[in-house]
């Protein structure tokens, strides 16, 4: 498992690995929003938690098809399926690698981008915390979607269509948590729900993803 994780991380950081692309996308989306809704600080501050959550979600979506597609093309997935580590572990490890290269940087970048949207500093903590809790679920759900579409030649668009509805509960609770945090309201309920979704996804979706990969390999 560590071997797979370190290889995936090495691949992401080498040239052509695509690391940083989703971060740049996140930045651009955030910069575009004020052009769309106007520069008025109060409005921006009010919608900032939601915008940042949607932006992070879309940035996460961008790199999903790389999770399994590259390994499928060059035959690595066939070889991994006959290797001693179970495919469930492969799926979970790849989701973890995706989170480390996408979700974690997005989480860390969010407070910086929040400044651009006039979010008061009191909201930074819950924004970061909600993203830290929610983005692992985004990666795991995305890995499941990527496993479903791995055999398809142009699976990218379909992948978005399949994954985005599955993202809705995570987005609702995550953005709600960040919004309540920014407004100084109690955040216990959305935090617990978010945590529940993340833990549930991590516990169950590796099995669904591995099943989908097995079907796609035969």
């Amino acid at each position, binding site marked *: 498992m560590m*071997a797979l994780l370190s*290889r995936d991380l090495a*691949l992401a950081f080498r*040239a052509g690995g695509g690391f940083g692309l989703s971060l740049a996308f996140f930045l651009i989306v955030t910069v575009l929003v004020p052009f769309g809704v106007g520069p008025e600080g109060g409005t921006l501050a009010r919608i900032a938690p939601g915008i940042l959550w949607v932006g992070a979600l879309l940035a996460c979506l961008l790199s999903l098809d790389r999770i399994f597609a590259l390994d499928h093309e060059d*035959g690595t997935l*066939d070889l991994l399926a006959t*290797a*001693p580590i179970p495919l469930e572990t492969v799926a979970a490890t790849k989701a973890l690698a995706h989170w480390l290269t996408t979700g974690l940087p997005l989480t860390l970048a969010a407070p910086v981008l929040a400044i651009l949207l006039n979010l008061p500093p009191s909201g930074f903590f819950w924004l970061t915390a909600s993203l830290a809790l929610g983005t692992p679920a985004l990666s795991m759900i995305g890995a499941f979607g990527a496993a479903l579409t791995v055999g398809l030649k142009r699976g990218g668009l379909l992948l978005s269509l399949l994954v985005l509805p599955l993202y809705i509960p995570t987005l609702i609770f995550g953005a709600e948590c960040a919004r309540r945090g920014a407004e100084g309201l109690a955040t216990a309920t959305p935090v617990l729900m978010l945590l529940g979704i993340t833990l549930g996804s991590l516990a169950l979706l590796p099995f669904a993803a591995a099943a989908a990969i097995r079907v796609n390999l035969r």
Partner: protein
Amino acid sequence: MDLTVTDLAIARGGIPVLAHVSLTLRPGRALVLRGPNGIGKTTLLRTIAGLQPPLAGAIGLPAEDIAYAGHADGLKATLSVAENLRFWARIFGTGDIAAALAAMDLKGLADRPAHSLSAGQKRRLGLARLLVTGRRFWLLDEPTVSLDAASVALFAAAVRAHLARGGAALMATHIDLGIAEAEVLDLTPFRAAPTAPAPGGFEEAFA
């Protein structure tokens, strides 16, 4: 333990291609699969490797004893030769890659990134992967594609050494590798007969 295949029937894309295939492979032996294109050599190897379920029949060998090498080598272009090999060694829980590098004459290339290798060199790296799996039964699908004469000899020597260590190899290839222990199995007689549709029946539409 032997690799035994009993009365196996397999399908490609939902269409039966081979039926009633039976074979036995003992440690120390090699078996070469022959047959025209499309007969189902690749499908047979993938089925034995456990990548797809057979239509019927049994495969008497745990998948944990098999190392499979398909058309694609599973190499990462941005990783070096040694890194690629070390990854597989760690996945299979075997440590040393030096012997495998030496056996496939890759020592001088160890630090080169895989994208700078020629097709034949990539193939040699893919075959070196078999050596680090530490598994006894090799399933090889066209292992000599894009290898030059010297590399084929190198590969044949590696297979022979593997057989001498008690390993076994089942391969689909058109070249004569000059391995004395190798038997040949022609798959042509096992071609699945196209069955006529039963009148009015729907069950067979879902074979």
